[in-house]
């Protein structure tokens, strides 16, 4: 172990640790743009300059400089403060300062560092450099040359993470710019990650741009429902409508990345029409009456099956299992949904909780299903037509009833993946916390409450349900521990500030 002093405080770290990493261990932030923990070190932005052993002539870059025994590092000495001011003044002289119409505003490390470490003024009296502001890198990504600070995170993302070079740096010196390669628009299915890691508003999402100022939005740290990888995400919404998903760093699951399909899947959770309140035979009824009807239909439970969605949380599935047990329902099955996976993050199982369902005793629908008297469909799930053949009754509990709604005797409301609270277990057996980004309103109660009331269970609170689920599942994986949260890119940090501001 190596012992060194940073800003007068001692710290002990592994050999090979960088000054920036060692400082973050002490909670000291060394500002940086080009360094990103999941792309690596480049050393071009010169924002992380630190003073090492009193050498003010040549400051060291904290992102790359390795720690040494007895080293004395200063991250805020006079020389460092002046150098940072210098770098920020340089970065801003040709920057368009169009924060008023920039989508990055509010979660922009250039704004944040300029505010915290910048000179507060500019001595630049010359005309600014002009450049194209709407360069179409693809149908998903727009590039603004004027806002770019040439940190090259985007080009290095493709090189390091995707082993490709669809974009690169063109020209020299002040004329340098990021440019598309000779093969035309970017086609990579993970290209939108460059938007998040861009520390300024140079790369914007053509889907999200100009839709909303981030400080008016609500954010929820949750999990992408797109597949059983369980990428950690932040869901952003405005007035009950989802506007975007962005990846949230988790080194053990998705690092800082997610696929474009998952990212853009937010749209499917903005429902124009949905089941609100309960209906029996097409007539709106009170929820309690509808539940009484279900109990009556289930009867002694013989010949009845429950088909549950693997979008349902572990807790909801535990509640369903409890209902099935108390009602002597014979079969508890889980649904299936797949898409084409790839060799990076996207897995073929297009639902987030198949592992959780299996752990709670749900099985695949057998190829030769027994003749059923009744079927209860729980959640958003495709129903194999062979199950519908001999039914006396069908109960649907779902956000959107669709064509099956007409065949159902009872239709109960359900919450979407982005309205749920609980946990999902990913393909690795990692149980991750799921938080609601939207509140569908009182006429769409939480799914687990419906199952609780149906089962007339002894437990009543979510905490009790959680204890029930925990009995047969691993603990919910910790996220946002110190280990993950201290070394984050500026984008993530900015986002946390926004989240705090939005909540306070």
């Amino acid at each position, binding site marked *: 172990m190596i012992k060194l002093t940073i800003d007068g405080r001692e710290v002990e770290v592994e050999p090979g640790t960088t000054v920036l990493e060692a400082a973050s261990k002490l909670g000291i932030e060394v500002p940086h743009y080009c360094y990103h923990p999941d792309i690596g070190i480049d050393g071009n932005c010169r924002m992380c300059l630190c003073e090492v052993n009193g050498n003010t002539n040549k400051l060291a870059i904290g992102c790359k400089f390795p720690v040494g025994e007895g080293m004395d590092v200063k991250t805020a000495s006079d020389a460092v403060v*002046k150098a940072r001011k210098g*770098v920020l003044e*340089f970065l801003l*002289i040709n920057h368009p300062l169009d924060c008023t119409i920039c989508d990055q505003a509010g979660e922009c490390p250039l704004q944040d560092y300029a505010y915290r470490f910048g000179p507060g003024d500019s001595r630049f009296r*010359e005309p600014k450099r002009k450049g194209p502001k709407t360069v179409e890198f693809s149908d998903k990504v727009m590039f603004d040359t004027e806002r770019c600070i040439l940190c090259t995170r985007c080009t290095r993302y493709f090189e390091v993470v995707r082993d490709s070079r669809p974009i690169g740096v063109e020209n020299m*010196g*002040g*004329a340098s710019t990021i440019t598309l390669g000779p093969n035309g628009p970017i086609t990579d299915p993970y290209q939108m990650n460059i938007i998040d890691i861009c520390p300024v508003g140079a790369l914007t999402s053509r889907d999200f741009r100009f839709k909303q100022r981030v400080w008016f939005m609500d954010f929820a740290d949750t999990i992408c429902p797109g597949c059983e990888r369980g990428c950690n995400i932040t869901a952003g919404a405005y007035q009950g409508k989802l506007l975007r998903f962005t990846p949230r760093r988790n080194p053990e699951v998705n690092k800082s990345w997610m696929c474009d399909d998952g990212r853009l899947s937010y749209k499917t959770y903005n429902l124009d029409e949905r089941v609100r309140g309960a209906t029996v035979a097409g007539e709106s009824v009170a929820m309690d009456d509808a539940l009484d009807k279900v109990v009556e239909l289930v009867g002694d439970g013989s010949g009845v099956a429950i088909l549950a969605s693997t979008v349902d949380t572990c807790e909801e599935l535990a509640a369903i299992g409890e209902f099935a047990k108390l009602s002597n329902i014979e079969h508890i099955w889980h649904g299936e949904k797949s898409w084409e996976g790839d060799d990076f993050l996207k897995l073929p199982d297009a639902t987030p909780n198949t592992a959780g369902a299996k752990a709670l005793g749900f099985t695949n629908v057998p190829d030769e299903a027994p003749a059923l008297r009744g079927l209860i469909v729980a959640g958003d799930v495709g129903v194999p037509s062979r199950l519908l053949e001999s039914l006396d009754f069908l109960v649907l509990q779902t956000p959107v009833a669709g064509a099956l709604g007409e065949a159902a005797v009872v239709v109960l409301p359900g919450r979407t993946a982005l309205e749920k609270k609980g946990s999902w277990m990913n393909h690795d057996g990692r149980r991750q916390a799921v938080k609601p980004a939207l509140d569908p309103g009182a006429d769409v109660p939480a799914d687990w409450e419906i199952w609780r009331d149906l089962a007339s269970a002894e437990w009543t609170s979510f905490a009790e349900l959680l204890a029930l689920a925990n009995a047969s599942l691993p603990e919910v994986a910790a996220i946002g521990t110190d280990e993950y949260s201290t070394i984050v890119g500026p984008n993530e940090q900015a986002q946390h500030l926004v989240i705090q501001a939005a909540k306070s």
Partner: protein
Amino acid sequence: MALKMQSILSARFDKENSYHIDTYRADGGYETYLETIKGEKGTPEELVALVKESGLKGRGGAGFSTGMKWSFLPKGTDKPIYLCVNGDESEPGTFKDRQIVEFDPHQLVEGVGITCYAIGAHTAYIYLRCEFALGIRRVKDAIRQAYEAGFFGKDIQGTGFDLDVHVHIGGGAYICGEETSLLNSIEGVRPYPRNKPPFPAVEGLFGDPTIINNVETIANIPHIVKNGAEWYSGFGHPEDPGVRLWCVSGHVNNPGVFEIETGFSLQELIDGPCGGMKNGKKLKAVIPGGSSSKVLMPDEVAQVTMDTPTIRGFDSSLGSAGIIVLDEDTDMVEAVRNLMKFYAHESCGQCTPCREGTPWIVKILNRLCTGKGRQEDMDLLLDLASNIEGRTVCALADGACWPLTSIVKKFRHEFEAKVAAATPVGAS
């Protein structure tokens, strides 16, 4: 110390067919190389020690001890070791390597052979700027002739020593003269300078241990190995010994390349071999070591001797030995604007301070030179330089700041005169 001209590196420059292997071999060329690879000149370790003892310093500009640089290679590595010869001579005011590659390429090629043996390299790249059209041809011819003579290839002369020498041609960027940019250029990637450490001796070309030496440095090697360390360290100033090719340009009657032992008087060079100031004008300033060195005033020129310890006392440097002489009619603001346009143009754009700072400086100087100067511009220029110097990956930015700050400080009155003559904003 008296000015002592020499004819070692430049011995064949004026001979007919000086670049042909026959001319070179008639003077005993390649004998030292052949003796070296047969082990007659000592072990590789002894050769490195010899070069260290000779006091030879890098002739590219930084002036680091050549033997010391070689000794930084990791011992007993199982990785290949590379030699890269830096012939990207682009420093304004510098044109000595060009003389070597055009008029005595075999001297360089023999130096490459001996150096590779000394450092354990079996592959060498000679990196030449593309503008050296003639030099490229001559070096390629020289390498071909050396192969034909059986000096390169596999198991050379039955010694078991293998060596292949390649020429790599640059694309025209000044930054490729920065040694790690040069490596990136050879590798075929964008030639951004690399962060150090790791230094190239540990992790260089293709990630392997690499020595990068200037053309003139390598051209010295055959002479040093042939004549010994003491012979070489006996030349010139005892603390910075040797013979160098000095490039004189500017307002003198007889500009050109002069081979002189270190430690001579700069004034004597101007008045003597250079034939004095052109048109009998008075001296205004000298940029002594290529454009990236700090300017000297006439009284400093009168006192300084051309060796590292002495010129350091005048807060300047020998750099690449490109001596630019400026007479009394020179507009120093225009002169520094010209230089800064060069640096802004040649900045690779990797580091924020250099990429953004050098064009800003040019914009300020453009204003000063077009009647739009402001009183605060001089202090602003100095402060911008302080935010660039020592804040970047490579020394290009430092090299840009040194002439700027020294000229602003020493010729501030010329800047002030421009400001005083400026048209006030709004006046027409």
